[in-house]
C-alpha cells in the first residue's frame, strides 16, 4: 500500500469524524429513525391487507367484538355496495381482495399479482369460514387469529426497518462522502495541489473507497448493535454475514453516484442538493422507511431501477428472512453493474479544477 493511499485515507477520515454535520446525517439521524420505528411501533406487524366488503358479509359482521379487534390487525375492511367497482379496485391493485357472501357461499376475489397478500387474505377467510361452520355445528365460536398465516411471520417492525434504514444510511454516507470529497477538494484547490504531487490517481480514489467502506461497516456495526439490544430485539438469521459483501457492492454503487454528482456539481451546495435529491426519494421508493408490499404494482416496478431497492432486498433476504447466501447474487450483480457504469461516467465527467 502506498504512503499516498494511507495518508490520504487518514486525511479524509479525520475530516469526516471532525465534521459534526456529516456524522449526524450519516450515523445519528438514521439511528434516530431506527429507534423511532423499532421502539415506538414495536408491536405492529406487517401492514394490514386492504379488503372490500361487498354488501353484507356475515362471516365478517358476526365476529365477536374482541375477535374483531384481532381481525382488525390483519384486515382493513372497507364497505362497498357496487360489486363491479369493487372488483375493478382489486384489479387495479388498490385493494388486495373483495369479499361477498351469497347465502352460504363466501366468495373471495383476489388479484394473483401479489401472491403473499392474496395468500394472507385467503387463509384468513378460510379460518373465518371454518370457525363459522364449527359454530354452526354447535361448538362455541372462538376466533384465534394471529399473524401466523402471513408468510413473513417473523418480520416484526424491527426486522424490516433495520435493513431498510441501514440501506438508507449507507446510501447517504457513500453518496455524500464521494460527492463532497470531490467537490470540496476541487473547490479548495486540493485536487490541483495533489495533481502537482507525485501521488497516483488510483491512490486518491482507493483512499475514498476505503474510507467509505469503513464508514459503511461502522454504520452496520452500530445499527446491528443497537437493533439487537433486548428492547428492540432484532434476530439475525444464520446467513446474516452474507450482508457484508452485499454492503460492500452497495457502497460501491452509491460511491459511484456520489462521484457522478461530485464531478458534475460545481459547488458544495449544489453537490449537497443533487445528492439529497437522489438519495431521499430513492429511499422512500426503495422501501427504506416502509415496506413496498402494499404499494401499487407500477411503483414497485419503478423501484426496481433503484440500487437502494436491490441493496435493501438483498440485506432483508440474508439478514432476517434467512435466505441462503446464493439467493442475493443477482442483486449483488445489479449493484456491481450499477457501480461500474456510473464510475465510467464519473471518470468522463471528472475535472481536476475549474480552470
Amino acid at each position, binding site marked *: 500500500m502506498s504512503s499516498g493511499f494511507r495518508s490520504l485515507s487518514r486525511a479524509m477520515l479525520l*475530516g469526516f469524524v471532525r*465534521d459534526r454535520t456529516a456524522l449526524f446525517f450519516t450515523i445519528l439521524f438514521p439511528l434516530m429513525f431506527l429507534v423511532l420505528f423499532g421502539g415506538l411501533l414495536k408491536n405492529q406487524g406487517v401492514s394490514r391487507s386492504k379488503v372490500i366488503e361487498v354488501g353484507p358479509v356475515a362471516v365478517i359482521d358476526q365476529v365477536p367484538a374482541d375477535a374483531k379487534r384481532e381481525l382488525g390487525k390483519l384486515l382493513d375492511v372497507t364497505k362497498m355496495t357496487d360489486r363491479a367497482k369493487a372488483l375493478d379496485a382489486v384489479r387495479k391493485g388498490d385493494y388486495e381482495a373483495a369479499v361477498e357472501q351469497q347465502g352460504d357461499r363466501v366468495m373471495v376475489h383476489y388479484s394473483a399479482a401479489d401472491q403473499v397478500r392474496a395468500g394472507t387474505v385467503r387463509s384468513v377467510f378460510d379460518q373465518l369460514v371454518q370457525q363459522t361452520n364449527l359454530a354452526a355445528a354447535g361448538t362455541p365460536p372462538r376466533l384465534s387469529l394471529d399473524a401466523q398465516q402471513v408468510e413473513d411471520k417473523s418480520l416484526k417492525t424491527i426486522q424490516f426497518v433495520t435493513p431498510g434504514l441501514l440501506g438508507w444510511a449507507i446510501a447517504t454516507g457513500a453518496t455524500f462522502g464521494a460527492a463532497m470529497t470531490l467537490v470540496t477538494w476541487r473547490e479548495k484547490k486540493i485536487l490541483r495541489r495533489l495533481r502537482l504531487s507525485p501521488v497516483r490517481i488510483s491512490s486518491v480514489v482507493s483512499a475514498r473507497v476505503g474510507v467509505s467502506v469503513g464508514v459503511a461497516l461502522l454504520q452496520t456495526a452500530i445499527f446491528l448493535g443497537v437493533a439487537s439490544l433486548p428492547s428492540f430485539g432484532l434476530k439475525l438469521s444464520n446467513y446474516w454475514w452474507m450482508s457484508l459483501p452485499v454492503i460492500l457492492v452497495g457502497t460501491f454503487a452509491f460511491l459511484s453516484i456520489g462521484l457522478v454528482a461530485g464531478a458534475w456539481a460545481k459547488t458544495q451546495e449544489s453537490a449537497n442538493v443533487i445528492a439529497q435529491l437522489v438519495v431521499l426519494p430513492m429511499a422512500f421508493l426503495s422501501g427504506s422507511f416502509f415496506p413496498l408490499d402494499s404499494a401499487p404494482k407500477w411503483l414497485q416496478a419503478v423501484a426496481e431501477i433503484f440500487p437502494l431497492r436491490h441493496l435493501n432486498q438483498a440485506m432483508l433476504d440474508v439478514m432476517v428472512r434467512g435466505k441462503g447466501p446464493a439467493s442475493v447474487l443477482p442483486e449483488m450483480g445489479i449493484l456491481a453493474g450499477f457501480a461500474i457504469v456510473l464510475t465510467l461516467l464519473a471518470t468522463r465527467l471528472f475535472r481536476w479544477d475549474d*480552470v
Partner: protein
Amino acid sequence: MGSTITVRGLHKSYESLKAVDGVSFDVEAGEFFGILGPNGAGKTTTLEIVEGLRKPDAGAVELFGESPWPRNPALLPRIGVQLQASSFFERLTAREQIHTFASLYGVGAKKADEMLELVGLTDKADVRAEKLSGGQMQRLSIACALVHDPELVFLDEPTAALDPQARRNLWDLLRAINTQGRTIVLTTHYMDEAEILCDRVAIMDHGRILQSGSPAELVRGLDTPTRISIETGAIAVDEARRLFQGAEVDDDGVSLTLVTRTPAPVLAALAERNALRGLSVRGATLEDVFLNLTGREYRA
C-alpha cells in the same frame, strides 16, 4: 546542460481575452527569477502553464528538459509549488497538513516537523489550517511546497496579504532557500519585493513580458534623474537655485528636493555647507521602469 526552465511562445486565451500573449523566458539553475506585474497581468496563468496545471493554446515549456503537460510524474518530485489560493485539507491541523503532504512525497514526519519549525509555525502546529491568520496560512503553504526539498520552487504571490514584518521574515526564508542552490520562480505585484529578492525579473503587463533583466540593469537602463531631499531650511531655496543651476529645485515647506542628473557634486556641495539634515537620496526604481515601459503609473 540546458536551462532549468525553458518557455517559448506561450499563448493562452479565455474567450476573447488574451491572458498570456507570447511569453518566452529561460531560468537557469540556482536563479531567483521574478515575474512582476499588476493584477490581471497574466502572472498566475503563465506560472500555472509552466507548472503543468494548465494547457497552453500554443507554445512550449520544458522543465529540466521535459514537458510538464500532460501530468508528468517524473517531474513532480523535483518541483515544489505554492498556489495562489492556499489549498488545505478540511479540518486538519497545521501539523496534519504538512505530514499529509510530506507522505505524498515519501518524506517522514520528522522532516515535516522541522519544516514547520523553519517557517515558525511550531506553536501553531495543533491549530486547524482554517483558523490560521493569512500570514500563517501562507507560511504553511510554503512549508508544504518545500517539505520534499524540491530543486525548483514556484511561488505565486507568496507575500500577498502579509504584514510588513511577516513579509520581511518570509524574504529571509526565501533567500536562505535560494542560497542552498534551489531555483526559485516567484510572481509578485510588489516592486520592492522583486527588486530586493530577484536575480532577474520579467516585467509583465497585458499578457506580455515587456522587459527582463536584473533589477539593477533595468533601472540603470533608464536615464532617470536622482532625487535628493533635505530638510527645509538646511539651505535657503535661493542659494540652492544659485548653486545648482542644472537641477530642479522645489520646496514644499517640509523638504527641499533637488532633481539632478549629476548627484555627486550636489551632494559634495551640500556636505561642504553642512546641509545634509534629513538627507534622502532616491534613484530610479522598478516603478519608474514600469512607468517608462507602459506610460502609466504602476498600480498593483
